[in-house]
């Protein structure tokens, strides 16, 4: 797996990545994923990058991230998110026509 931009987070990131990959190939692609069982590991990984702030339950990924903040990356991410709205709108939309076997 690839490294984290914060070297101190490499270990937890690797554990999360491995968990995710297993979940993705064995459950998500098979359509049997009910919950994201890797979420606790993701929270740890996220916390490693983050300031100790109460994590908002509503938008858990939008709290300030320490490493990101220190390097001014948080602002850039915010801007990129804004710029990406069109992509979200285009690619998150529900499929209106049911897929037919081709």
């Amino acid at each position, binding site marked *: 797996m690839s490294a984290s931009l914060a070297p101190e987070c490499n270990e937890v990131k690797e554990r999360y990545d491995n968990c995710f990959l297993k979940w993705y190939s064995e459950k998500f692609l098979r359509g049997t994923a009910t919950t994201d069982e890797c979420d606790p590991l993701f929270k740890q990984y996220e916390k490693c990058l983050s300031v100790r702030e109460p994590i908002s339950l509503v938008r858990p990924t939008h709290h300030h991230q320490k490493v990101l903040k220190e390097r001014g990356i948080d602002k850039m991410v915010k801007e990129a998110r804004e710029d990406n709205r069109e992509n979200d709108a285009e690619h*998150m939309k529900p499929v209106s026509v049911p897929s037919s076997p081709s």
Partner: protein
Amino acid sequence: MKIFQQNTEFDYSWEEVSTSNWRKYGPWNESCKHVIAVDTLSRTVDPSTGILRTERLITCKQSAPKWVLSLLGGQDTSLVYETSYVDPSQRSVTLCSMNMTWSDLLNVRETCIYSPSSSDPGKKTKFQQRAEVTALCGGWAKIKNKLEEVTVERFQQNAAKGREGFEMVLEMSRRAFQEQKSPILREARI
């Protein structure tokens, strides 16, 4: 604005390609040493569509020509913001990337789509890549034009390397998963 695009196919099932996509910048890929870090910023499954959305931050070592680097302020790393959308029911992976570094001067937007090949949907995967490059620096049209040209050339050079690297990852993943006997990939190959 200048455009780079290519369409190609991989001799692996969509399930294998979409899984290996997450390992694309890992140690199995000898051709992407310029990617030094990949961090996941968020990941959610949309309950109504089942689409998996992932936000990642990709840190790259700069390899731009010196005159471009000096023009752009001499930073030696650059950051890319990527969102990806995996629709398991449609069997498609769409990756949208944009540059975060130098975004005042240069706008690079790339969309890559992996979907089952129409010729052999169970065993082959189609890869569509399109990048739009727009220089934003005011004034001198010649410089803008050159900057766009250099960036598109870089895409062309990286396309071949990217493919070669991803082929390595696909092969290693197939071997690793064969050893693990992951049910989804075993089924996908039948």
